[in-house]
């Protein structure tokens, strides 16, 4: 029976292995978008949609700048880079024809809507309202008769006061201070000529393959420029460069940490057992655990997030627990055959697995997609490793009772003696009092910080280059924006028009340098009708006849009223207005893009209390969310502690169960206390580790509680080994460059160490009150 099961398990593992090998051949689908780790629920869907639209729009934009005192060298460098980028087919550099066409296409698009003033610039509206219609008539005369007049017959017939050209030239310049110089966007600053290449990605910014190819192409071009034209400076702006660097760091780190973890594990087992067989068996347990976990995660999620990969590889430290408890039985003398040894460890590892699974299962309730992946990865890995121990270890185990290791056993037993010997009664009380003191002192200093910007270490060089480019262009598009929510586009446009006065005030207060909104390009129908009436009353009725006479038009064609009023839908569909589509998220949901934002507080205050025009600061919102989930992770810890307690009550009775739960509970309390004492704020990622501390800590106390008389040393050795391995894997994360990962490692380091030291405390209580076994 057990043989058949072992064979069945072999078939499953082999199948998973083959599938993984096929996947590896095609390249593992690894995701690196840190935002993908964010919860999808509990967010305003409109804000979320808008955030995605904004980050997608910003994320796809790249700017490269090439600066040199010699204009030709700057231009040649830029053209070299354009050629390299075009060759990747991953992005499209904006060419000069497209740039020149923008204005022409817009003029053609707006022309049929011109004529009777339904498109009116703000300045012209002010002129008409203040009774200065004659200024407009004079301007039209100037433009008609002036040098190189733009006026043609069709325009003059439709729009004799030339209100449309005025409207068009009032639209914001799409590229700040940049001007075209022989087909390239250029700005001259001091002695240097800067040439700019705007580039649009064809793929999402976090598409790892496209990202790598494009960044390689840019890097290659920059290297060549550095060799052939050493005086040329190259600046980059774009989320892709940050994303690429983040992904590289995470992958390098993950491979380094997991290598150290694996090598450390191997060395530890070989040194302790002085046999190859326990090493091979435990490698088998770890190998099947990790392979099955990978296969399962790919199967369920279709890919794996780089963070899950990072945490997942650390799982090696936990899956090794069960195999180690089994293998250390070789240091004992009672159980000498495989089946005997399995029978002895089975209650411990079953109970241990159950409690740890509870911890991870609690994690799957966290609405963070990344955490779900980690939890699923861990659950599959743990169960697989457990099955391997139960089905395969007794079959392959040929290790005779070991004679060495007396000193090691003595060393490992020390915590057991500390918690059981009478002579340490005072020391025990002092230690517990010390723990209590630490908890009290720590919580006095306890503070939290959920600022999302601390999560990712941004390259300072890239940040500086980005700032320099924004200065050169004279504008920057911010991730913060105003979100306009209304039942339909018309209502949204009206709300934007109502916000203009406040926005202009913010510009004069230098809170922002500028803004763009759909209403700039498409006035509301209401505004179009009002403007039309204003033009009719103040301009056409009093001045049209006279104006025509001055133009010398004897028999002028009649003014043709526009066929229809301009709407957002038709304008977006025409696709001629740059970036308009990015500002219209959905019908009635519009974005007001803010430029050069320096005082988010003033902007927030200006729109405070308004439900339909809201200042959205994704970074701050994201941080608030992390704070909420930090609270939720703490709740989960308490919840999983309670679940473990229920299981323990079922097994040991209420009073003993309370003793068994104490070590992991104290460990979980000491983590925030010690983190606070080191001066660090407590974050969501610290809290996330707490759930695991409960699971692992419960393993240790259960192993102690289930220990048979005479096997205390063996159990303690297995716990020592398990703790050492967990620290080798989880604990190593404190060296990560990413704060989130480092925080998680810190929790594991403190929690696991404390759990190991305190574990025998509970077992002592259980042994005293253990009911006689059948």
């Amino acid at each position, binding site marked *: 029976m057990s043989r058949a099961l072992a064979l069945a398990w072999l078939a499953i593992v082999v199948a998973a292995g083959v599938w993984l090998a096929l996947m590896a051949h095609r390249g593992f689908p690894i995701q690196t978008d840190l935002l993908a780790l964010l919860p999808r629920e509990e967010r305003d869907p409109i804000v979320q949609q808008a955030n995605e639209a904004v980050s997608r729009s910003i994320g796809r934009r790249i700017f490269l700048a090439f600066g040199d005192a010699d204009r030709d060298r700057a231009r040649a460098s830029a053209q070299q880079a354009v050629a390299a980028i075009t060759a990747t087919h991953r992005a499209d550099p904006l060419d000069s024809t497209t740039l*020149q066409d923008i204005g022409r296409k817009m003029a053609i698009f707006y022309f049929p809507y011109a004529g009777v003033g339904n498109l009116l610039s703000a300045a012209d509206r002010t002129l008409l309202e203040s009774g200065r219609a004659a200024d407009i008539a004079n301007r039209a005369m100037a433009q008609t008769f002036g040098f190189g007049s733009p006026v043609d017959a069709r325009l003059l017939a439709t729009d004799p006061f030339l209100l449309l050209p005025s409207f068009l030239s009032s639209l914001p310049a799409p590229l700040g201070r940049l001007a075209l110089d022989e087909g390239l966007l250029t700005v001259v600053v001091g002695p240097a000529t800067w040439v700019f290449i705007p580039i649009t990605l064809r793929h999402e910014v976090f598409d790892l393959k496209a990202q790598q190819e494009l960044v390689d192409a840019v890097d290659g071009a920059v290297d060549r420029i550095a060799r052939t034209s050493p005086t040329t400076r190259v600046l980059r702006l774009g989320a892709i460069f940050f994303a690429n660097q983040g992904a590289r760091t995470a992958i390098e780190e993950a491979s380094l940490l997991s290598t150290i973890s694996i090598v450390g594990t191997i060395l530890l087992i070989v040194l302790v057992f002085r046999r190859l067989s326990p090493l091979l068996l435990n490698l088998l347990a770890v190998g099947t655990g990790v392979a099955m976990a990978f296969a399962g995660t790919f199967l369920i999620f279709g890919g794996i997030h780089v963070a899950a990969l990072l945490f997942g590889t650390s799982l090696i430290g936990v899956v090794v627990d069960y195999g180690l408890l089994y293998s250390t039985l070789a240091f004992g003398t009672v159980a000498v055959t495989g089946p005997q040894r399995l029978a002895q460890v089975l209650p411990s590892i079953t109970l241990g697995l159950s409690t740890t699974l509870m911890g991870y299962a609690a994690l799957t309730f966290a609405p963070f997609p990344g955490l779900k992946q980690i939890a699923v990865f861990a659950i599959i890995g743990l169960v697989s490793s457990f099955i391997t121990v139960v089905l395969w270890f007794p079959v392959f185990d040929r290790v005779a009772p070991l004679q060495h290791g007396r000193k090691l056993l003595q060393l490992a037993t020390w915590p057991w003696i500390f918690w059981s010997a009478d002579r340490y009664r005072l020391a025990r009380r002092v230690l517990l009092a010390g723990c209590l003191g630490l908890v009290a002192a720590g919580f006095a200093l306890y503070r939290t910080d959920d600022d999302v910007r601390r999560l990712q270490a941004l390259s300072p060089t890239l940040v500086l280059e980005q700032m320099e480019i924004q200065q050169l262009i004279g504008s920057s598009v911010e991730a913060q924006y105003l979100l306009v929510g209304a039942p339909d586009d018309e209502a949204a446009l009206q709300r934007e028009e109502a916000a203009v006065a406040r926005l202009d005030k913010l510009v004069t207060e230098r809170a922002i340098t500028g803004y763009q909104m759909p209403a700039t390009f498409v006035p509301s129908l209401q505004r179009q009708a009002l403007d039309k009436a204003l033009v009719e009353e103040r301009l056409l009725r009093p001045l049209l006849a006279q104006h025509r006479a001055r133009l010398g038009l004897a028999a002028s064609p009649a003014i043709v009223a526009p066929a229809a009023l301009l709407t957002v839908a038709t304008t977006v569909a025409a696709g001629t207005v740059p970036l308009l589509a990015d500002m219209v998220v959905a019908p009635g949901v519009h974005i007001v893009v803010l430029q050069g934002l320096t005082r988010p507080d003033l902007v927030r205050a200006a729109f405070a209390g308004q439900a339909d025009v809201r200042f959205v600061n994704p970074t701050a919102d994201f941080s608030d969310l992390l704070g909420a989930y930090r609270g939720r992770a703490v709740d989960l810890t308490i919840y999983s502690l309670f679940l473990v307690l229920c299981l323990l009550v079922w097994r040991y009775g209420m009073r003993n169960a309370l003793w068994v739960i104490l070590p992991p509970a104290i460990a979980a309390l000491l983590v925030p206390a010690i983190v606070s004492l080191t001066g660090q704020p407590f974050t969501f990622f610290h809290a996330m580790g707490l759930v695991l501390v409960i699971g692992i800590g419960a393993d240790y106390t259960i192993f102690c509680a289930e220990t048979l008389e005479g096997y205390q040393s063996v159990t303690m050795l297995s716990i020592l080994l398990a703790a050492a391995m967990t620290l080798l894997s989880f604990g190593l994360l404190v060296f990560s460059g990413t704060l989130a990962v480092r925080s998680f490692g810190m929790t594991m380091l403190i929690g696991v160490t404390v759990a190991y030291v305190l574990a025998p405390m509970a077992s002592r209580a259980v042994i005293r009150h253990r009911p006689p076994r059948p």
Partner: protein
Amino acid sequence: MIARRRIVAATLGVLLAPRAAWAQSLSLGQDEVLRGRFTQQRFLQGFNAPLASTGSFILAPNRGLIWHGETPFALLTGMGPGGLVQRVVGGATTRYPASKLPMLAQLYEVFSAALGGEWGKLEGIFEVERKGTPTKWQVMLIPRKKDGGMPLQHVAVQGGRFVNSVEVARVNGDRDTIEFNEQVVSRDPIDSEASELLGMVSHP
């Protein structure tokens, strides 16, 4: 719309200057300026009579061009590397900086190339046909790209020592003719208002 004015402006700049290079008998020195009078007639489709205007102009190498309309409407226009500026006499000044419309920069290249008498540079944008003698010549400029933002059919220039007339034909059938006369080269200072306008457009 504004861009189209630039095109014509640039073209005119081209045309006023190169006559020196063509004739090879006159070249404006650093502080020399060309002054003269113009009569402009604008033939628009669907209008019975042409829109006519008259006035004077000043061309100052490396600084720009002043176009001073007198009838039927008093208007001062300055054009240079920095863009275009218009002042209604006794009224408002309107600036159209080069950065507002990227196309202008390209067009100013045409302008400045011509100011230097460098026909070679113009040949990138126009096909240049020359006929006649140094004292009586014609130049026909035809844009190489019809959709390249230049809504021009052709530009025809006639001249001798100076440019005598220019015809600008647009793709939509509209046509401008400008006749020049009383042209004088001198070192007389430019009046303060024209200087002010040139100051606003002579630098990018």
